[in-house]
């Protein structure tokens, strides 16, 4: 489903070029879950951004369903994100101008896959029932992250990408959110790539890789 082949990524900084990814290769099969660990600044988020087509590699290829993402024009990459990917960010990135229900359905509507039954089911599962007309700032941090997960899963994407999913949550809430995410991922049978620095988040996943100095290593969570 998702494949990185000998990917290089370098950023220009005032201190000189910064080699973030150096000859990185990985594969993620349909329905598989993968945790990507590493220290701050190790390039985890860059790898996630490349996977989502938000950024492009300097060398090598990132393929989704055997399509080279870099070869796609910008509107096609946007459609790929809209229809095939679910993205969950550490800072939630809910749209402050939309209510809970409108935020939840936003990506599904953009992907023209809005399903009222599925949305209602998600609302129940996310524990947001009765809060549909609230605005994001009227929710707690955990509720906001659950809503962000719901928004990503609403169009039933084949691949879910999550960046530091629990980074802004306390330990108990983080556990609840992770449990909910994994349960929903199992239900929808989508593949999952989580960037995290937390061994607790990585532990339940199928595989775990560690990024260090731009290189990817197999690791135990």
């Amino acid at each position, binding site marked *: 489903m998702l494949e990185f082949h000998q990917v290089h990524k370098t*950023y220009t900084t005032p201190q000189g070029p910064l080699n973030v990814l150096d000859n990185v290769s990985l594969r993620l099969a349909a329905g598989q879950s993968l945790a990507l660990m590493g220290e701050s600044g190790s390039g985890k*988020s860059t790898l996630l*951004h490349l996977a*989502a087509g*938000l*950024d*492009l590699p300097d060398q090598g290829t990132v393929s989704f369903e055997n399509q080279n993402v870099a070869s796609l024009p*910008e*509107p096609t990459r*946007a*459609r*790929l*994100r*809209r*229809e095939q*990917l679910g*993205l969950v*960010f550490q*800072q939630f*990135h809910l*749209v*402050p*101008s*939309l209510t809970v229900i*409108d935020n939840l*359905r*936003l*990506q599904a*509507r*953009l*992907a023209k896959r809005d399903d009222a039954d599925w949305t209602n089911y998600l609302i129940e599962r996310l524990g947001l029932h009765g809060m549909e007309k609230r*605005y*994001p*700032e*009227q929710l707690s941090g955990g509720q906001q992250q659950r809503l962000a997960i719901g928004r990503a899963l609403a169009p039933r994407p084949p691949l879910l990408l999550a960046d530091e999913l629990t980074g802004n949550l306390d330990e108990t809430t983080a556990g609840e959110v992770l449990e909910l995410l994994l349960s929903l991922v199992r239900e929808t049978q989508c593949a999952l790539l989580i960037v995290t620095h937390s061994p607790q988040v990585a532990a339940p996943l199928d595989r775990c890789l560690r990024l260090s100095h731009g290189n990817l290593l197999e690791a135990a969570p």
Partner: protein
Amino acid sequence: MIRVLSTLLSHYRRHPGQLIMLLLGLWVASALWSGIQAINATARDSYARADALFDTQLDQLERRDGTPFSRAEYHALRQAGLPVSPMLEGEIITQDGTRLTLIGIDPLTLSSDNALAQANTSASLSDFLTPPWQTRVAPDTLAALEIARENASAATPTLADGKTLPPLVLAPALPPDTLIMDIAAAARLLESGDQLTRIVAAPGALAEAPPGLTLTRATTLASPGQLTESFHLNLTALGLLAWVVGLFIVQAALGLALEQRLGMLRTLRVLGVSGRSLVLALSLELFLLGLFGALAGIASGVWLARSLLPDVAATLNSLYGAGVGQELNLPWHYWVGGLAVSLAGLLLAGSGVLWRAARLNMLELGQMQAWRSGYRRQLSLMSIAGALALSSALALYGWLHFQSPGDGLVAGFGLIAALLLASALLLPPFLALVLKVLARLARRRPLIHWALADMQLQLPRLSLAMMALLIALATNLGVGSMVGGFRLTFLDWLDQRLVAPLYLNAPTEQYANIDAWLADRQEVFERLLTRRSDATLQAATTPEGSRSLGTPIELYGITPGESLTPHWPLLATQQDRSSAWAAFSDGAIFINEQLATAENLSPGDRLTLSAPGANETLTIAAIYPDYGNPSGQVLMASPQLAARFDAPPSSMGLVLSDDADVDTLRTALRERFDLGSDALSDQREIKRIATEIFERTFTITRALNVLTLAVAALALLASLLTQARSRRQQLAPLWALGVPRALLAQLNLAQLSGAALATGLLAIPLGIAITWGLVAIINVAAFGWRLPLYLFPGQMAVTLATAVGVALLAAALPTLRFWRASPRALLAEEANQ
């Protein structure tokens, strides 16, 4: 304190754009306001100097037909024991073509209370009275004489005709473009022989006018300051509008600077800075910025005034005959006042910031929820304040409804101001409501739904700029329609009044011979002789009773006939048009709209007019429009005017047959009656001059209008630029969710142009209301005439296009920056959110 202040100011080091916008707003507001005040101050100074001289300080004796006196007549009056003084007035032309007024006086007989007589005490009277005489001149007239101030003393400038002026002596109290000298020296320069223009006396020195003369009391003469009051009020209103719109920019920039510094303020409070110290530091920051912006604004305002003054002076001269110096003359209070108004404006715009800083909660700052409910409260308050302003407008309208048509200039401006304020205040609640309804309707279209919901979120930051845009657009449309309507009416009126292709201005005594000669010419179809004289409107008899008035008026005689009667415009008649003209030919009178408005007269009322040797009571048969005339005028048939008031001829219109050779007739008239080159005027030439004067009159109005709109566009640009960064942070997640950047950029433009279009749509009825206020209330009160309300669909379309254009222009730069941002930059925004 200094450390707190420098910490606060460090924000602008990171965000120089906000500092630039803040200073720009202050500069623009202060420049436009102080520029207009500089013009007003200079004009008022000129009026004060003119007032202090002759016109309103002395009683005047004149011949009823306006012809000059002879010295023998003056001597006869003196021999009869009357305390009168001679005066000679004329025009001289300088080498650069400037026309200056030359006044010759006799200081020995002139009232010692007069400003000139007082001015003479400082100089030797014999130098003034004896050759080579002296020319008294104000310093701001020296430029016309091409003399530098340092070389002015005793200079003897040469005029266009080669004559030289007596040695100059500076007299700052004199009005501009006016020269004063002994009557003997003036007679030599004007080649007036033994003629005198008028004879003056100290106020009240003469109990009555000597036989055959008209006595005009000083108290009945309106000073230029009184006549032009409405013009300056108009200018002040436009200046105030520009000032308010400029302050919108300041408010928007200050509001954003505060919002972005809330974290910093909270940290400072947590670190132990007291709330009072924080407010004090913010006030100090405001003061420093204000001082800088105001000084730059005042300097630019003086420059602006200097550029506009020649047009304003020409306008005041053509409209009211009021002389205004071409050089700025600014009293000390102008500078202090300009600074005070700018700082007061800044305090007004910054009061919200200071209030929020004073109520700063260290723990709950910046929370979206508090902000959202705060904005809802703000919308409610705006709705209430808007409703109150609208009620005030309605109350003022009701009050004006019960006043005489000429009353209520200030109330008229108040009504327009209340309407503008009400509309501006109601705009954000209105837009919020529209967006809410549309968002509900567009729920199934996710991007449109998002765009509408997002616009609701942007509204608080944009509302001030939108309010400024609404005010500027409505004023632009209102004033534009008024000027456009006035132009149509005026040109139409000129066509109706100027029916003859050729007009003759000959010496009075020649008209009888010319008329007899023209009567035999085949090509002359009709001769339209006009007569002119002055009289006093002693009393008016209306259905409510009789009133004593004592108002000086003009008497004007026309020749009703086949050419003139069908075209001459009438506003109101006692019965119908043909009855009015029949009555007119039989001796009834028409009065101009100015007189009807000022004295509340209607057709059917009777007026008692007095002039030396004549006292007539006549019926008003109709009221006619008389645009551009500041005086009340009574119109009579020429033969009636000659018979009843012995009025001399003043001009003659020649209606010619279609095959007439105008040039041959013109030459024949000139040769036969030895007429000067300017004695015959072409109708087209008169229209051209009149239209030119008209256009010049509204130059400054148009200039200020365009400037106000430009300031509003700047306010919108300022708002958009200052929030461009936070906008990108809003748009980046959407891009990450799969909305193409091009679509987001288009949506961004559509959001803003949609809001601007709604604002433009609201500006149209508001603009029409302003036009109505201007033509039906303010013009009537200021000038005495009411204009028909013309609406221009083209101008409305331009208003809408301007609204959208301004919004697109303002949104283009931030959108372009978003469009051109690299994916990495967007990701950085997204990560920083």
